[in-house]
């Protein structure tokens, strides 16, 4: 059942992104920014955590899930460290993904050359 929800929720989040790309003039970069902010917002109003529970990777892999990780991290950090947590929580929770994307991206970009279009 979990797998079915992962497929449906993940698929729907992507289909909504496609709708936004086709119907508005939003570029993929803007969609990504929009998705991250939406993920933070939906987490704060309490909608996204139940969605993650239901759909797992279907909710964490789309970039709204990155927003969820940021907001969820900040929530835990504020609970543990108080005011300082406002500034440490987001990046702490997402450090793994950001670091791998940057370091591995750096290595790949060093190895590969631009190809003919």
């Amino acid at each position, binding site marked *: 059942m*979990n797998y079915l929800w*992962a*497929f449906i929720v*993940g*698929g*729907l989040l*992507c*289909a*909504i*992104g*496609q*709708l936004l790309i*086709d*119907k508005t003039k939003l570029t*993929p970069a803007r969609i*990504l*920014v929009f998705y*991250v*902010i939406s993920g*933070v*917002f939906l987490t*704060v109003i309490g909608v996204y955590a139940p969605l993650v529970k239901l*759909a*797992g*990777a*279907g909710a*964490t*892999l*789309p*970039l709204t*899930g*990155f*927003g969820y*990780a*940021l907001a969820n*991290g*900040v*929530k835990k*950090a*504020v609970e543990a460290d108080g005011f300082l*947590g*406002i*500034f440490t929580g*987001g*990046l702490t929770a*997402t450090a*793994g*993904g*950001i670091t*791998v*994307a*940057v370091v*591995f*991206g*750096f290595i*790949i*970009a060093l190895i*590969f050359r*631009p*190809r003919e279009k």
Partner: protein
Amino acid sequence: MNDEQYSKIVNNYAPSSPLFTDMLKAFFAGGILCLLGEFFRSFLISADFSVTTASTWVSIMVIIIAQILSGFGIYEKAAKYAGAGFSVPISGFANSVVSPAIEYHTEGLILGLGAKLFTIAGPVIVYGITSSVAAGIIYYIGGLLK
């Protein structure tokens, strides 16, 4: 045959709305990607990883695979068919980190490769962190009111 009849016939042969097919493609591509991610996540959770750790590992694996495929130019080709199905997931973010960096590699290691890694990651991280601080302030005030 008048114009109305003509357009009726043309409409019968025209492919169904590109919006609908685009969304269907994005739905299936994104759905299958998330399904595979969930297989891996469930496996990690069953191997005693915490839910948060498992989710982070899945994201990391997807990022690495997407960037290798981007290096070979395969990710972009697949994304042409999958549309948002491959650009909205974190693999699309990973691709957006690496492809401008490859493109501008020839302009040097610092302002070429080094700077262009953040062409799209930069704004995503700027707005992500800023909104997370806003969320943190809300959580902090919420905690004070308890």
